[in-house]
């Protein structure tokens, strides 16, 4: 008996390019004086579609995840649905009260106390005064700020600030909740608490749309997942399938796509490949065999010595493996280039997709380069480890070799 609560048809949003360099009044006046008629007409400006032709239906009680790269239009879609900005094309109909959490601490004022901010932020997010009064003790308890509730929030640590902000937001009770990336805050313990709260929210039958880079969180909380790419809808389906597709595409080198990276840049990786036991580049690595990765790049002079670390991550964001040898250093040729190979004997990871993060630096001194999701590969079944073919890394990350002995 669930009904459609959000119905959107071919939503599109067109932005002018270069919003930051919006001309000042002088410019506008000047244009007007020079060519009065022309400036009254719509100026020809380069525009781009942050969102184009997105249609969707969300049923009551659904928990919907929204994934996509930076600039894929996730936040734009959320902003349209929460009425912050208006679409250029299409329309949407929303049945029920909408609450949007697009940042932590919306409307907080540093000079006001925790108590005052709880009321202010609550009101801005759409709670009524008596709602807030009723839930106030609960909010304070959730934020664990009993002692500091009458201190101005400018004296709060960032952790306290975030806790209070999330506590207020968590007690919002709209029928439709739109959430953007707010889970990525606070310490681990508090994050868990927030995830628990989000879970409660979805179990209470409320409709939730959640945007996150953390596919793990999406996988855990959502039933259905939308994948946006360059403003268009690429996939819309059950959460596991969509996430897997998305994760694979993340690591596939594409044109116009650059690695998400950090570090000082004294070493820069430029290419990476995963190789099978025969040393040939492969997208699949069999269980129980050796495998290796090769990485090429440039370094600032041959004198720069660096360590390399590998990190394997599951699509859910679980850190699966860490490979690092602090005594093994690499250096570039006099021309400033390097090609290295790192071999990992006897892969015991369970079958499934993995993402690979690559790091170069001097332990404890400097991070030269850190590439997140440098590549991805699948671990597949092999003849060396005999497990049934339905077994994946959802059963466990590592395979253990059992040596059974009957004792009695």
């Amino acid at each position, binding site marked *: 008996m669930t009904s459609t609560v959000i119905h959107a048809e071919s939503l599109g949003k067109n*932005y002018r390019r270069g*919003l930051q360099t*919006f001309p*000042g*009044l*002088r410019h*506008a006046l000047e244009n007007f004086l020079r060519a009065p008629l022309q400036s009254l007409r719509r100026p020809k400006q380069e525009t781009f579609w942050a969102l184009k032709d997105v249609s969707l239906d969300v049923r009551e009680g659904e928990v919907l995840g929204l994934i996509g790269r930076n600039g894929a239009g996730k936040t734009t879609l959320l*902003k*349209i*649905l*929460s*009425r*912050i*900005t*208006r*679409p*250029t*094309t*299409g*329309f*949407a*109909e*929303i*049945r*029920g*009260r*909408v609450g*949007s959490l*697009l*940042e932590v601490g*919306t*409307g907080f*004022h540093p*000079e*006001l106390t925790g108590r*005052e901010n709880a*009321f*202010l932020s609550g*009101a*801005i*997010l*759409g709670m*009524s*005064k008596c709602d807030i009064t009723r839930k106030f003790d609960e909010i304070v308890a959730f934020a664990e700020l009993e002692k500091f509730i009458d201190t*101005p929030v400018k004296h709060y640590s960032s952790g306290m600030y975030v806790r209070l902000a999330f506590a207020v937001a968590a007690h919002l*009770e709209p*029928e439709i909740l739109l959430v953007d990336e707010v889970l990525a805050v606070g310490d681990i313990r508090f994050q868990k608490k927030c995830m628990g709260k989000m879970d409660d929210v979805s179990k*209470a*039958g*409320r409709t939730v749309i959640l945007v996150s880079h953390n596919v793990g969180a999406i996988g855990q909380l959502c039933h259905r997942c939308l994948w946006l790419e360059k403003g268009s809808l690429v996939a819309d389906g059950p959460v596991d399938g969509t996430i897997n597709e998305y994760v694979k595409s993340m690591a596939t080198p594409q044109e116009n796509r650059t690695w998400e990276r950090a570090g000082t840049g004294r070493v820069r990786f430029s290419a990476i490949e995963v190789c099978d036991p025969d040393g040939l580049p492969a997208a699949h690595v069999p269980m129980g065999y050796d495998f290796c990765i090769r990485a090429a790049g440039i370094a600032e002079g041959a004198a720069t010595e660096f360590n390399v670390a590998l990190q394997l991550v599951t699509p859910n964001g679980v850190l699966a493996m860490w490979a690092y040898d602090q005594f093994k250093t690499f250096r570039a040729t006099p021309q400033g280039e390097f090609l290295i190979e790192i071999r990992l004997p006897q892969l015991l990871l369970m079958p499934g997709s993995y993402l690979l993060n690559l790091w170069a630096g001097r332990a404890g001194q400097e991070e030269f380069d850190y590439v997140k999701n440098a590549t991805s590969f699948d671990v597949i079944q092999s003849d060396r480890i005999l497990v049934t073919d339905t077994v994946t890394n959802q059963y466990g990350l590592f395979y253990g070799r059992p040596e059974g002995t009957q004792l009695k």
Partner: protein
Amino acid sequence: MASVTTRPPDEPASNTRPTETLSPRNALAAAERAFSESHVTHSPVIVRIEPPHGWFDLRLRELWAYRELLYFFIWRDVKVRYKQTVIGVAWVVLQPLLTMGVFTLFFGRLAKLPSDGLPYPVFYFSALVPWTYFATALQSCTNVVVENQRVITKVYFPRLVLPISPVLAGLVDFAIGFAVLLVVIALYHQRPTAAIVWLPAFLFLALLTALGVGLWMSALNALYRDVRYIVPFLMQFWLFASPVAYPSSLVPARYRWLYGLNPMAGVIEGFRWALTGHGQPPGPQLAASAAAVVLILLGGLLFFQRMEGAIADRV
């Protein structure tokens, strides 16, 4: 701009879906509610989101539904204004008092400008109180959209709440200034006349002027930050274009309606007249002022509504 229509705009709270889990106690309550709901045929809130179109739709009912938020914005403005200041609220009084002193000395004693037979301090202060209210309200109104840009880009509410809040918040300062004004009047042995019943009307006119101009300025400021620098200048000119430092009797009678096109001319002169009985009683000057206010306000509302859709994208 009928781009977002809410029907019905004022949703009774009784129609929200119960969200508590089903414990026996809640189940009973839920059953009761379901029963009562089945007899009340409310349609749920349906919000339609569309590209901007149309011309003029103030959605005043939606604004009314958000009155609590307006209250919280006003409350915040008042609370924050004097935090971490040493003498706090005294600033409200000190500013016009000092200006009064300067005016009395230079315009009164030295330049010997006429004062419609009032003692100079009373003459100046009775104009400075409404003027200070207007100037402060307009200036904070100008900046209100820019200052709240984080909120604007993160959550929806009728944007009209923003320019309205500083105009109303300023009334608190006005009340304090007005109390001091009454003391000043008493000190100089002036007695208010029956005309004082007109006072709220003049205050209301000042409020509408600040709001009307503020609507223009806040929307313009969101798009062109130049406005922020223009407004202080504008206020200086405006001060001398209004009968604060001189009586409007200096203006030749046949030009007074023209002079009245400055809404504050009508407000200030009227305020002084209502309080002390001196000066010009309402006439063509006030009529012109009232007409000007209506035009500015309607234009401001229209302009603000027109820009509202673009504000979140361009602020």
